[in-house]
């Protein structure tokens, strides 16, 4: 085995440059943040004293923290399902239509190419001014006179944020599903057709099962993205009305950068990090079990 030596050669040298950056700009600030969360530092990161777990205890007792946490979870629950299903539907349509592929790719993915700030302002312009906004005017022309406070009514504000997010980011899920569909071997469909399966049966028995791994990836990426909701809310509602759309990251931002309590904000963000780890582990376990059941 002359080549055995080659497989172990230079291994660390390949990894080291990346890891240097990773340690310096991710692991180190992560540790620094943990240290900050145990102190009473202000924004400059100086002049604080060690307070142990006081910040964590305070955060866990604050009802505002809990309501922000709830808003983040609620947004994640509301947004994940439509974002995954719409992406899947778009990919199925584009893949089976076999016509003007570029048009669907371009129009459904285009919003993803815009910065969050721009997306927020655009949708404010469309839904917020209730007398001259595009949304209300369009509904008016089809005979509905909504007069809905899209962003000012507690019942609709979160849904409006979900709608904006759907429009903005569904294109990414669409592309993942489209790539997944293109990777399904054609002979499976040919075999199914020979067996007399109709279009609906081919979708249920071939396409959807073959997309299971893609769906796993799309769902976990979507969960992580939804849990990090911040930009759209910050621009469109600042967390209102009556704090009903304020996600946990806005709570962290308000305490850290506006309220200058960086130690407390760090503690709250570490609680949030713990939540993300928990959800990721649950999801991992869930998919692993699903895979084992399939293997049987």
């Amino acid at each position, binding site marked *: 085995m002359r*080549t055995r030596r*080659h497989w172990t*050669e*230079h*291994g*660390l040298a*390949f*990894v080291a*440059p*990346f*890891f240097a*950056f*990773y340690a*310096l*700009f991710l*692991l*180190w*600030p*992560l540790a620094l943040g943990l240290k*900050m969360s145990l102190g009473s530092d202000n924004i400059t*990161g100086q002049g604080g004293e060690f307070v142990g777990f006081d910040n964590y205890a305070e955060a866990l007792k604050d009802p505002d923290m809990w309501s922000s946490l709830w808003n983040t979870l609620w947004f994640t629950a509301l947004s994940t399902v439509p974002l995954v299903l719409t992406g899947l539907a*778009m990919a199925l349509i*584009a893949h089976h239509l*076999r*016509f*003007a*592929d*570029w*048009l*669907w790719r371009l*129009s459904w993915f*285009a919003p*993803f*190419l815009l*910065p969050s*700030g*721009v997306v927020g*302002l*655009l*949708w404010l*312009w*469309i839904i917020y*001014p209730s007398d*001259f906004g*595009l949304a209300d005017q369009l509904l008016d022309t089809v005979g509905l006179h909504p007069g809905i406070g899209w962003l000012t009514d507690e019942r609709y504000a979160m849904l409006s944020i979900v709608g904006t997010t759907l429009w903005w980011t569904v294109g990414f899920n669409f592309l993942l*599903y*489209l*790539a*997944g569909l*293109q990777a399904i071997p054609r002979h499976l469909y040919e075999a199914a057709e020979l067996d007399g399966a109709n279009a609906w049966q081919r979708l249920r028995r071939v396409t959807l099962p073959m*997309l299971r791994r*893609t769906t796993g*990836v799309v769902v976990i990426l979507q969960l992580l993205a939804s849990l*990090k909701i911040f*930009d759209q809310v910050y621009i469109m509602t600042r967390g209102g009305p009556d704090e009903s759309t304020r996600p946990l990251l806005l709570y962290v*931002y308000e305490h850290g*950068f506006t309220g200058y309590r960086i130690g407390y904000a*760090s503690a709250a963000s570490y609680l*949030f*990090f713990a939540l993300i780890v928990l959800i990721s582990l649950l999801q991992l376990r869930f998919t692993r079990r699903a895979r084992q059941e399939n293997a049987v």
Partner: protein
Amino acid sequence: MRSRTDHESGRRPRWTPGRLALLLGALLLAALWVLPLAYAFATSLKPQGEEVDTPLTWIGSRITFEAYEQVWEAGDLPRWILNTAYVATVTTALTVLLSAMAAYGFARTTFRGRRLLYGLVLAGIMVPPQVLMAPLFAQMLALGLVDTYWGVILPQVAVPAMVFILVKFFEEVPRELEEAAFCDGAGRWRVFFTIVLPLSRPVLAAVAIFTFIQTWNNFLWPFLVTTDPGGMTLPVGLVNVQSSYGVRYAQVMASLVIAGLPLLFVFAFFQRQIVRGIAHTGLAGR
């Protein structure tokens, strides 16, 4: 633009009623997705003050580029576009090179501590970037990198998700290709640069394009780390001038068009390669 399909068999199916219904659905969805963008574009061409007229019109009393001129004069657009292009290009190049090397090291070599290091990298995927903002800022202050290009670039370079994607890909590359080169006397680095990297072009393209989009549009970090208008990126600069308009929507929409166009062109040209690249990453499953 050509509308040829990507699928293996070039033959297009017939226009059955079912397929026509599918087309109708596609057109409806496309309209829904394009309408807001078209509306923004229409608004940006209206004369001052007419944006808020009721009932709403798509075209004002005349078509004018006044709003674009005002945005152009209010800020330093050419500078911001160059800054953004520079930052996004350097970040993308570094990210692709470093992640590809690291991924190859994790996927194809053995060394002590490999599993531990890879575990640490995987754990990093879950870290929300916002958690790092405050300590990173303190770190940049200490390093004297605030208001520099490197201050914007360096923290964005180590992206654990990209390493993960590339590891998954490299694991599938047949080892025989490399073995053959080793037997011919090629060293590890030569094998990596002359065999593995060229083989991975579609995946690297997908990783590069997503890194580029992300860096081009990133707001929060460049916003925190630049205070000097001359060093701002496009999203930061545009938000900065927006605060001086108040509610002049024509200008806001004009800056939206300016911010969106460069990437739209990039995507229009590379869309097919992007989808193929994702299909190759294994991200989409196989």
